[in-house]
């Protein structure tokens, strides 16, 4: 029985249509090279992407869901950040 476990990596894939890298899932691998190889086999069997990033899962710092309200609620009240807050006369046309 293997004593030590293979570390976990998070996989990000950039699709061909020019979008940013997006989280696809995770793989286990002993090092970065193997993580890339495994990510290719597990997450791109049907031309899903043109580029892969792998990041050790332990290296990710995430926001705390318990602080969700404190972090994100203030944006809800700032309606002046949206274009619809401003009035442009109809005669001006599309802006």
């Amino acid at each position: 029985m293997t004593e030590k476990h293979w570390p976990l990596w998070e996989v990000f894939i950039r699709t061909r249509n020019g979008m940013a890298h997006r989280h696809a899932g995770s793989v286990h691998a002993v090092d970065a090279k193997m993580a890339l190889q495994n990510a290719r086999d597990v997450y791109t069997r049907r031309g899903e992407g043109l580029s892969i990033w792998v990041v050790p899962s332990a290296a990710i710092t995430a926001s705390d869901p318990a602080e969700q309200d404190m972090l994100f609620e203030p944006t809800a009240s700032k309606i002046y950040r949206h274009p619809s807050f401003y009035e442009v006369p109809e005669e001006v046309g599309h802006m």
Partner: protein
Amino acid sequence: MYTQALNTREDATPAADPEREARFQTRIDAESRIEPNDWMPEAYQRTLIRQISQHAHSEIVGMLPEGNWITRAPSLKRKVALLAKVQDEGGHGLYLYAAAETLGISREELVDQLLAGKAKYASIFNYPTLTWADIGVIGWLVDGAAIMNQIPLCRCSFGPYARAMIRICKEESFHQRQGYEIMLTLARGTREQKAMAQDALNRWWWPVLMMFGPSDKDSQHTDVSMRWKIKRFTNDELRQKFVDATVPQAHYLGLEIPDPALEFDEASGHWRFGEVDWEEFKRVIAGNGPCNRERMRTRRRAHEEGAWVREAALAYAEKRRQREAAMQVAAE
């Protein structure tokens, strides 16, 4: 590919934190997704670990009956397709293990549970693949039943599971069409080939209906799983949907469903079918199906014989790390 509602009893633990639990239920009711770091009732977490890992184990064990025919596929075209399908099942198992791991259980623990016989997997994989037609039936019916089960799971309340299911469902459609095409070729072939197709259908039909799990009147999970939106339809509802979709496909092939009670009910628009042999279902789930022991033996052997590879890969990675660190020190 395959999830199956199995009849293991959930301990009814009293709500430890009724207030949080009420808030949790409000989020579920509002169709909000639950993510791994969010607070969740312990029973929700336990139910999901069990369901997702059973699902993952089913994918992995499910590679065995089909793997049996890779070297004997009748043509190169069939062989590459079957290889790709079996590889997909392996991939599905990996997506699902990763989803289960987000709930705080390690991959090794999950694999150990399977190998120790503590975790279950779909009963269907304990049946043997005797002829090439079985590969057709597995794609057409086993994957077809899996799709019925899995499409609602794409909307499951637990985010990582739902996202894994979306990927899986996209890939599953190839599997089913691949199987149906094999059946179509056999059904249009010689008399012997057609008989082989019919024989495979006869042997697999009832075990496939069992894939939807126990009848609603006997299923202990349905209520709470529906409330938590892990499940969206009951076992019997999904089984009926599957029969309705499949009977016309069998007729198109010119094959007969091995159920004398099968008949179309004009009034409801549903195909009525006979009673599943639940004794057989219980027997197979309990470990006494035709291939249970062989499947477990094969998985254990693969795991044990792969141990040196896992250890060597770790040792090699460690050696390289040390070497790089030493080179860095020398350069400084």
